[in-house]
């Protein structure tokens, strides 16, 4: 199907119908991961390390095994010792051995909360008692938490064989520095020499958690013949299947994973923690095992994203033209390699047309939980630094912040800071919309300030499968492989309805399990509406071709003589014959007679995703006595390509912006001197609540991505990229002080107000 250039040609796409799973969700009927019970199920629980870094000398499970009601106890001895295997699967680079060790420690525990044993018992109380009865002998080792301390030459080393890659000469000693990455255009130092004005800044950010309200949950049941069913809350049922098979050495065909409704993921549920463990426990005792993380476990033992440090240098001429730019990003990966330092470097300056730029960085391990993807991984961190520095630059130049960005804006044909030329993009349009918005010129009061910041994310395509079936009565069933975390079922139904020319109410979309639909990559990377949408459209188009053929048979004319219009087969011209239009339902009635069931399944590797840009304007009021930063007004402008369901697009923008607001103002991992997390609960890990926020004005700019039939660009990740700098810039505007450290929590703002320095 060719790109539909005219929005007015669309009947369903762009409207705001009610989502098909909505009724279940507002009545409490929807089944999330912890809501399923299987007959005979046991409660599974995990024993976790109280130490940040220790050798496991001995694990004695005998007392636990002997307890009444305990049906299985496992340690790493029950998990295959798989070799190191790098792969880029779906959401990022992965090492399967690291993932296995993260699920169950082998020989060493590398962070407080690291799993080292698990039990399955007939009740929660017995499972707890069994955990307490497992005797572990540790040899506690010195630990290291923060990134620069972990990089120091005398830091305790987590992995004996870790030799830094990407540096020349190659080190001879192991360290905690996994790798160095660098992306360059031109010569940034030469560029700086041409500058009239230079800003040099250093920032630091803390680790923050995706903080989905639903903890990880799974029920797994293994039959004696190895056939396994898993019901789990996840961003990818195929991912669970593949990773569990890999970690436990099972055939993929023996595992059937049903994706439960998922209570938030944001990247944090794109990997496995409990699933292989529950499966291994079930295999050992022959009964279903249900495992649900507590909130405490979610914080201590599931991946937050990285914290780190960012140094930025930007040089510009008096007229605002940037002549040189540099960023150095050091990110914590947690206990195993894999911080998002590469995308952090690639996105840092992506908004700008630069001839001389270098963004380089280090991936560093330390004794913290292994980081997991979090909405536009890496980009919010480096963008916080760059967009704060840009604000300083605007200030030094005496230039309006939007004007400075417009002067250097990337556009179609610009060579991106990460290398390739940009195709059609919407950054200038986003800036223009921000400038034109009444928020930009609204008056401000005492202790109030305004900040603007912009951001970029690639968005991806990837493997997706969808099927479209015509039912006996002409209604339509759509099955896709993408777990629905934000309303995507509605969008799939809308796109199918648009192609078929039928009302949305006649199309029902569900999410299939791994046995019901073709392989589909994870729900993440802002890919579902783009990639799974593309598969759905292609499946619907294939169905339209079949419907035309069937109509031709019914009319006894050539299939070339049939067109499809508004949900009906029509003769292609006067010569085809004077037939009345044949509605889909009428053709469906004759399906058996004209060849059999009408349907199509399409599997694709969707290419050509369109990148997105956002610009956020934020007004704050800073209380000079308490340092409390109140968000007064928030406007988030974003190029969304084309909004299939505008309400859900707005929702992504509002939700992503809110996570960025929490990241900016309150959220952080706090560690004690023993390397234990101090604030592993929602009371002290403070995410934004309803009373913290005003309404968030989500402004949709549409520069369609012509490589998708409806012009879709991914939208979910871009909105978390600008907020931290927007708020930092607003705080500067309100107080005259530049905050260099996130979060900008009240004690830190108050201290900055006192000392005059942030």
């Amino acid at each position, binding site marked *: 199907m060719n790109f539909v250039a005219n929005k007015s040609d669309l009947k369903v796409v762009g409207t705001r119908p009610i989502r098909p799973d909505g*009724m279940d969700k507002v*009545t409490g009927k929807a089944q*999330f991961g912890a809501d399923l019970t299987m007959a005979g199920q046991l409660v599974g629980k995990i024993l976790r390390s109280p130490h940040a870094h220790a050798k496991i000398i001995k694990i004695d499970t005998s007392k636990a095994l002997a307890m009444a009601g305990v049906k299985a106890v496992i340690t790493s001895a029950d998990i295959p010792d798989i070799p190191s295997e790098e792969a880029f699967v779906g959401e990022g680079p992965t090492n399967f051995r690291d993932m296995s060790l993260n699920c169950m420690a082998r020989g060493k525990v590398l962070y407080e909360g690291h799993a080292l044993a698990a039990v399955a018992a007939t009740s929660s109380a017995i499972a707890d008692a069994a955990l307490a009865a497992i005797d572990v002998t540790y040899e506690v080792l010195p630990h290291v938490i923060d990134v620069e301390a972990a990089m120091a030459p005398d830091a305790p080393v987590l992995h004996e064989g870790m030799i830094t890659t990407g540096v020349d000469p190659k080190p001879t000693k192991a360290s905690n520095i996994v790798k160095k990455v660098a992306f360059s255009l031109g010569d940034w130092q030469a560029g700086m020499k041409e500058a009239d004005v230079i800003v040099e800044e250093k920032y630091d950010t803390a680790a923050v958690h995706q903080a989905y*309200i*639903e903890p990880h949950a799974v029920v797994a049941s293994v039959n004696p013949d190895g056939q396994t069913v898993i019901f789990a809350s996840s961003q990818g049922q195929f991912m669970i299947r593949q990773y569990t098979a890999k970690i436990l050495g099972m055939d993929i065909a023996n595992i059937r994973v049903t994706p439960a409704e998922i209570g938030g993921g*944001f990247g944090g549920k794109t990997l496995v923690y409990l699933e292989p463990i529950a499966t291994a426990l079930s295999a050992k005792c022959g009964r279903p095992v249900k495992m649900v993380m507590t909130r405490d476990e979610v914080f201590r033992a599931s991946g937050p994203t990285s914290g780190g440090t960012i140094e930025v240098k930007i040089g510009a001429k008096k007229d605002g033209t940037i002549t040189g730019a540099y960023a150095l990003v050091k990110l914590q990966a947690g206990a195993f390699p894999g911080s998002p330092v590469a995308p952090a470097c690639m996105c840092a300056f992506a908004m700008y047309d630069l001839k001389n730029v270098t963004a380089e960085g280090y991936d560093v391990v330390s004794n913290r939980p292994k980081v997991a993807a979090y909405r536009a991984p890496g980009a919010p961190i480096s963008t916080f630094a760059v967009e704060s520095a840009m604000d300083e630059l605007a200030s030094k130049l005496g230039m309006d912040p939007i004007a400075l960005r417009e002067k250097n804006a990337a556009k179609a044909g610009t060579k991106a800071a990460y290398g390739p030329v940009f195709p059609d993009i919407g950054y200038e349009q986003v800036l223009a919309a921000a400038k034109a918005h009444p928020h930009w010129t609204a008056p401000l009061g005492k202790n109030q300030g305004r900040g603007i910041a912009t951001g970029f994310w690639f968005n991806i395509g990837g493997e997706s499968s969808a099927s479209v079936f015509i039912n006996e009565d002409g209604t339509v069933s759509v099955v896709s492989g993408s777990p629905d975390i934000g309303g995507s079922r509605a969008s799939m139904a809308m796109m199918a309805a648009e192609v078929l020319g039928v009302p949305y109410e006649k199309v029902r979309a569900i999410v299939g399990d791994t046995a019901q639909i073709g392989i589909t990559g994870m729900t993440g990377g802002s890919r579902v509406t783009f990639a799974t949408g593309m598969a759905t459209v292609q499946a619907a188009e294939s169905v339209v071709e079949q419907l035309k053929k069937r109509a031709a048979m019914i009319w006894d004319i050539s299939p070339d003589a049939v067109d499809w219009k508004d949900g009906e087969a029509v003769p292609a011209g006067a010569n085809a014959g004077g037939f009345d239009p044949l509605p889909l339902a009428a053709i469906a009635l004759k399906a058996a007679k004209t060849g059999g069931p009408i349907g199509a399944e399409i599997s694709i590797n969707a290419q050509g995703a369109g990148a997105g840009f956002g610009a956020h304007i934020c007004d704050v009021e800073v209380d000079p006595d308490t340092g409390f930063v109140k968000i007064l007004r928030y406007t988030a402008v974003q190029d969304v390509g084309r909004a299939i369901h505008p309400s*859900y697009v707005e929702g992504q923008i509002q939700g992503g912006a809110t996570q960025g607001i929490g990241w900016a103002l309150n959220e952080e991992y706090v560690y004690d001197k023993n390397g234990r997390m101090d604030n592993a609960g929602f*009371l002290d890990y403070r995410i934004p609540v*309803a009373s913290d926020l005003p309404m968030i004005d989500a402004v949709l700019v549409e520069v369609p991505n012509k490589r998708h039939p409806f012009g879709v660009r991914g939208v979910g990740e871009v909105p978390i990229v600008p907020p931290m700098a927007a708020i930092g810039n607003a705080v500067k505007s309100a107080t005259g002080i530049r905050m260099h450290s996130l979060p900008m929590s009240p004690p830190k703002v108050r201290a900055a107000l006192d000392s005059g320095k942030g």
Partner: protein
Amino acid sequence: MSKIHVTTTVNGEPTEYLCEAQDSLLDVLRDTLKLTGSKEGCGSGDCGACSITLDGRLVCSCLVLGVEAEGKSIGTIEGVAKGDTLHPIQQKFLEHAALQCGFCTPGLIVAAKALLDSNPNPTETEARFWLAGNLCRCTGYDKIIRAVMDAAAEMRGAAA
């Protein structure tokens, strides 16, 4: 330890169950009564996903013991709709797209209903502060507040 027998009312229905002294009401609702609409997000009363009403008062069921329900009246998400007629709050949540993943939704709807039952005409600020105990990570609360204010207006109009 032997279980304790509790007689109570859940969503208007007389209900009996057995539970241990230390079981939370949330666990009883979900595991014993199979009313899984109330969710556990934190287990410590900080997220509101387990919100129910106890004799009309909004509480976190993870902070109430199963035995405390004796002789009281419990209201959960499962009782908000009347048969197949959605409560205006539920309808407005759907129309305003006030949910994305839907996990916080049951708790929010119960909490919003408790708000409007006690204050049919809240300001936006009053609504935000009342609902501050219900965490949502997906929506940024914008469409939730719009849905609640719209439901309040509709309910006032219907009552008028």
